[in-house]
């Protein structure tokens, strides 16, 4: 609860610190404009035109709904993999045999390209939500799983012994020692998995659905609509930036200020 108030309290200062980031984004847009003047409309439409296209798409072309569909899928995939990955990773970390056996399996999962999963998922589940969410889950699950596994495996015996020497009750050991330690591994894994979900969802949609931003991206490619494609990319990146920097980063700062 206290942490929550701290996050709210330090939020304005955190936002204010964002000027540097904004300046760098504007610099990037200037470079984009420069590229546009060299290569012309077809290869690289002007930033202004792309922004207008973006607004138009959201307001008049029904892209707002498509974006919601995509974000819904990404979040579902993320939540399922965060839940499964954390629970199974913690469990595997508690047993030496389980953590040893799960390592190669996770390596296989990580090594398998998501595009291959999409093909398999299309055969198994057909075209639609399930295929997309499944692909997101298999791609982000290993990241969370490894984070949770390492969190439990690296619990220091020293601190446990210290807690024992003070006859610490079991519940307090969990809240004061195990949880903060494991969380410090799991939380960054969640952030990485969230980023992964955002990327995979578009790829899966592009190949396997008729709605969502990915499908819209497929249409712009068909029509050589470069401005449209760039506008869609901006929607995706923009929504991820908003979630990551307005939600995740402030939480991370609060809960991880004890770190080096």
């Amino acid at each position, binding site marked *: 609860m206290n942490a929550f108030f701290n996050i709210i309290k330090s939020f304005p200062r955190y936002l204010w610190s964002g000027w540097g980031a904004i300046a760098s984004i504007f610099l990037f847009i200037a470079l984009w404009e420069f590229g546009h003047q060299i290569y012309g409309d077809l290869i690289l439409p002007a930033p202004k035109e792309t922004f207008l296209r973006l607004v138009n798409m959201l307001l008049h072309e029904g892209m707002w709904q498509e974006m919601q569909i995509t974000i819904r899928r990404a979040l579902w995939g993320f939540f399922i993999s965060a839940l499964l990955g954390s629970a199974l990773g913690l469990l595997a970390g508690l047993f030496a045999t389980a953590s040893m056996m799960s390592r190669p399996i996770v390596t296989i999962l990580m090594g398998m390209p998501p595009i291959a999963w999409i093909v398999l998922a299309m055969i198994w589940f057909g075209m639609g939500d399930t295929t997309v969410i499944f692909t997101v889950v298999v791609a982000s699950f290993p990241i969370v799983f490894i984070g949770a596994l390492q969190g439990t495996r690296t619990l220091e015996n*020293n*601190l446990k*012994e*210290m*807690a*024992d*020497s*003070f*006859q*610490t*009750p079991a519940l*307090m050991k969990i809240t*004061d*020692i195990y949880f*903060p*330690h494991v969380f*410090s591994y799991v939380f960054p894994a969640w952030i990485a998995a969230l980023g992964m979900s955002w990327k995979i969802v578009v790829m899966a949609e592009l190949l396997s659905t008729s709605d969502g931003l990915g499908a819209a991206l497929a249409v712009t490619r068909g029509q050589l609509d470069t401005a449209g494609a760039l506008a869609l990319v901006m929607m995706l990146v923009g929504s991820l930036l908003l979630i990551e920097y307005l939600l995740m980063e402030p939480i991370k700062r609060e809960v991880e*200020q*004890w*770190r*080096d």
Partner: protein
Amino acid sequence: MARLNAAYLQAHQLSHSFGPNEILREIDFRLDQGKVVSVVGPSGGGKTTLLHLCAGLLDITEGNVENSFKSFAFAFQDPRLLPWQTALDNIAFGLKAKGIAKQQREQLAVAISAEFGLEGDDLTKFPKDLSGGMRQRVSFARALVLQPELLFLDEPFSALDIGLKQELQQILIQQITQKKLSILFITHDLMEAVRLSDQILLLAADPGRIVHTFTIDTPIDKRSEQFVYDETAKLLTQPKIIETFELTMNLTSTLNRDKQT
């Protein structure tokens, strides 16, 4: 009540093995209230095992330990602070484990931190922002805030430089004399043992057994630096010490010559 039958810790024929390795063999010693007993011996000689057996962190398999002290606390070689808690919360850790309310435990923690030279600003810092010496002070404060009757020390000074070591030892000597603290102290540093203890047990390795006991009668707070040096030098000429620490003949002959001149 406590005055009438003073508390003590007594080990009877205490032996311990890890699998086939015999670590300790038939240890006997007694620690009375208000006394400091140190166990000195080479590294890897089973000192920490002995301490853990006495503190109940390890299960006793052979022999027994009688402990009539009502409370005890521990300070380790490394501070073992929780990195995600502030210095204040770390000091209050043992109090929290005892179920003392937040406000009261913070008051107690603030009060003791002054005795250890920790100031307001330090208390809100996380361990990563404290120096090594500060961290060890927090660790000591965490143990002593509980006002234990018995304190277990597992080489708590060995990672500190000379200045910090001396400072912390001075604080500890104050606590020993003011609060009649009883201490079981593990160290491989003979001089430290001479400075702080009433009785020194010499623990030989393989398997760990007590081969000799030295008693120092001068009260702990009356020992000058010179006294500590002299006593240590005297101990270093004892055949048992030379044998246990495997001191080279060269060093011993030098010391003998010094003694004669």
